[in-house]
C-alpha cells in the first residue's frame, strides 16, 4: 500500500470565463500558442541575425549548439523524470540532484583520469556514479515513498558534499584523448560537443517518443491510477526514469570535464536554469507536454538568446531576467489556454 500524502496539490481555480467563448476561438488560441513559441524562436533568430551579422553564421550556430550541450543533456534527463512524474512539480517528478550529480561525476572522471587510468575506465566510473545517484533517488522515491522534491533535495546535499570531499573544493585538471576529441572541432568546423548533443537527443527521443516503454512513461505520469489498473509496472517505470536521469547527469559530467579541461566547483548553479529549460520545453510540443525534442528546442532557444545578447553587447545580467519573463509569459499563455480547454 502506498500512502498518498497530498503535500501540495496544484491550486485549481474556477475555470475562467474570460477570453474566447466559441470552440473555434479555443482552437485558434491553441494553435496560436503552439505556433507562437516557434514563431518567437524564429523571430528572435531573425532579429539577432539582422542586428548582429555574425549571428547566423555556421560557426556561431555550431558554437551555440556546443555550448548548450551540457545543459541540454541535463534538461533532457530532467524531462524524462517530468514525463514519468506528472505535471505537478511539487508532488510529481522532479530531480533536484541533477546538477550536483554532474559535478560529482565530473570530479570522479577527472580524478580517475589523473590517477592514470584510461578513458574507458574514467567514462565507466563517471556513468556509474551518475547511475548510482539515480538508483539512490529511485530507491528513495519508489522504495521508501519519499516525495521526489524532498528525496532529491536530500540526495543533492549528499552528492554536493561528496564532490567537495573528493575535490577539496579545488579544480582537478584532466587531459585525455577523449577529452581532446570532445573539445575539438568536427565536421564544418563545428564543435564536437554540438554533434554529441544532436546524437544524444536523437537517441533519447527515439527511446522516449517511439518505444512502448516511452509511451508507458507518459501513461504513468499523466494517469497513474489508470496505468496501475492497466497493469503497468508503475514503480519500475518511475524508478527507471530516475536512473535514466542519473545517467544523463553522469554523461553531462563527462562533457563538462571536456568543456572546462577539468572538474570545477559550482555545478549547483546549473540547477535552476536546467529546471526552467526543461519546464519551458513543453511549449515546443504539440500537446504541451514535456518531450525530448521540445526540451532540445528550449535549450537552444535559451542558448541563442544568451549568445545573441553577447554579440549585441547587451549586459549579461539581463539574461536571467529574460529567462524569468519568458517562463512567466509562456506559462501564463499555457494556463489561459488550458482554462479554455477545461
Amino acid at each position, binding site marked *: *500500500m*502506498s*500512502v498518498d*500524502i*497530498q*503535500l*501540495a*496539490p*496544484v*491550486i*485549481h*481555480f*474556477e475555470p*475562467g470565463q474570460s477570453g474566447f467563448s466559441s470552440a473555434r476561438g479555443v482552437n485558434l488560441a491553441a494553435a496560436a500558442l503552439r505556433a507562437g513559441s516557434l514563431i518567437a524562436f524564429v523571430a528572435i533568430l531573425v532579429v539577432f541575425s539582422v542586428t548582429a551579422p555574425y549571428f547566423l553564421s555556421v560557426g556561431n550556430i555550431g558554437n551555440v549548439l556546443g555550448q548548450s550541450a551540457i545543459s541540454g543533456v541535463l534538461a533532457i534527463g530532467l524531462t524524462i523524470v517530468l514525463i514519468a512524474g506528472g505535471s505537478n*512539480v*511539487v508532488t510529481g517528478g522532479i530531480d*533536484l540532484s541533477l546538477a550536483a550529480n554532474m559535478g560529482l561525476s565530473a570530479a570522479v572522471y577527472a580524478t580517475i583520469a589523473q590517477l592514470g587510468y584510461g578513458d574507458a575506465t574514467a567514462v565507466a566510473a563517471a556513468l556509474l556514479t551518475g547511475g548510482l545517484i539515480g538508483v539512490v533517488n529511485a530507491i*528513495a522515491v519508489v522504495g*521508501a*515513498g*519519499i*516525495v521526489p*522534491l*524532498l*528525496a532529491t*533535495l*536530500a*540526495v*543533492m*546535499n*549528499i*552528492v*554536493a*558534499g*561528496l564532490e*567537495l*570531499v573528493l575535490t*577539496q*573544493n579545488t579544480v582537478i585538471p584532466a587531459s585525455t584523448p577523449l577529452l581532446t576529441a570532445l573539445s575539438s572541432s568536427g565536421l564544418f568546423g563545428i564543435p564536437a560537443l554540438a554533434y554529441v548533443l544532436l546524437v544524444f537527443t536523437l537517441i533519447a527521443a527515439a527511446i522516449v517518443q517511439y518505444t512502448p516503454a516511452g509511451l508507458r512513461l507518459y501513461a504513468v505520469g499523466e494517469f497513474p491510477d489508470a496505468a496501475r489498473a492497466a497493469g503497468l509496472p508503475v514503480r519500475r517505470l518511475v524508478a527507471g526514469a530516475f536512473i535514466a536521469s542519473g545517467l544523463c547527469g553522469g554523461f553531462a559530467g563527462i562533457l563538462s570535464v571536456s568543456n572546462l579541461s577539468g572538474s570545477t566547483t559550482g555545478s549547483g548553479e546549473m540547477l*535552476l536554469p536546467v*529546471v*526552467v529549460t526543461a*519546464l519551458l520545453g513543453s511549449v515546443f510540443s504539440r500537446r504541451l507536454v514535456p518531450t525530448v525534442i521540445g526540451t532540445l528546442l528550449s535549450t537552444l532557444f535559451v542558448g541563442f538568446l544568451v549568445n545573441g545578447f553577447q554579440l549585441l553587447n547587451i*549586459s549579461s*545580467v*539581463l*539574461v*536571467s*531576467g*529574460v*529567462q*524569468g*519573463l519568458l*517562463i*512567466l509569459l509562456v*506559462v*501564463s499563455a499555457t*494556463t*489561459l489556454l488550458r*482554462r479554455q480547454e477545461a
Partner: protein
Amino acid sequence: MTLQTSSIGTPTLPRLLLGTVVDNALVLALVTVFAAFSIATPTFPTLANLQSILVNNFTLLAIVAIAMTFAVSVGGIDLSVGTAVDFASFAFVSLVLAGQPVAIAALAGLGAGAAVGAFNAVLISGIGISPFLATLGTLFIGRSIQQLLTNGGNPVYLPPSGAPEAFRFLGRGAIAGIPVPLVIAAVIVAGATLILTRARFGRVALAIGIQPSVARYSGITARAHVAVAFILVGLIAAVAGLILSATVTVYIPSSGNAFLLNAIGATFIGTTLSRLGRPNIPGTILGVLLLGIVANGLLLTGLNFYWQQVGTGLLIFAVLALSFINRRKATA
C-alpha cells in the same frame, strides 16, 4: 488512525508502539540526534552552545521557513522567498546609507518584500500560474533586477561607524539578555501559529491546501486567500532580510537564496512528519531545529568541513526514509 485500528480489532502492542513512533517521528528524530551529539561531543549540550545554535543556526532560517509554511499551507510553494529577503535587505541598507531614519528604511524594506509577494499573488491568483513556475520566474527576474541595481552584483556596504544605533540594535542588540533577532523570531512564531490555528484565515488557507475543490464548493474565495498567503510570505521573508542586513551590515545581491533549499526542507520535513501530514508551524520549527542541530553538532565533532555537508545530507535522508517507511507500515 484510531478508527482504522478499532475496525481491525484490538490493536497489538507492536502496532500501537509503531503508531506512537510514527505520530511523533519528528520529536523522536530530534531527541535521538540531540542525544547522539551530546554523547559524541561534551561541548554540545552546554548552555553556551545551545544558545549559539539558536542565534546562528536557527533565527533567520526559522523566519524564512515560516514564510514558506504559509505558501505550502495553501497548497503552493515559493521559490522566491530569497528574492523577498534580498529586496528587503537592499531597500533597508540603501535607505539607511542614504541617511533615512531606520524606522522608515525598515518599513520600506518590509514593503519591498511584500511587493515581491504581491507580484507572485498576481501571477498565481490573477493569472492562475502554478506557484512553482510563477515563483521560479520571479526568482530569475529578481536576480536580474538586483544585478541591474548594483552595477552587476556589487555588495552595498554600510560602514560600521555609519550604522545608526537602532540599526545595530536590530542585528546585535538584546532585550533582557535575549538577542533581538531571537525575540523577533519568537514573536513571528507565535503570530504565525495563531494565524494558522486560531484565525479564520489560517483554517481556510489549510482547507484550500488540502482540498481545493471542497473549499471552493463551500463558498471560499480561494483566490483571495491564496493571494494574501503569498503576500504574507513576502512580508515575513522581508523581516529575515532586515535582520540579516542589520547583523552583517551589508547587502549582498542574491544572498537570500541560500535559505531557499533549507527552508523548503524544514517546511516539508515538518509537514510530512507531523501527525496529520499538514503544514504546521511547530513542525516547521522542529524541522529548522533538526537542521540547525545537525549542522552545529557535526561542526563540533571536528569532522572535515566537506564531510559535514555529506553528514547533514545523510542524516536528513535517513530521517526522511525511516519516517516514510514507518508511516507506510503503520497504515498498511
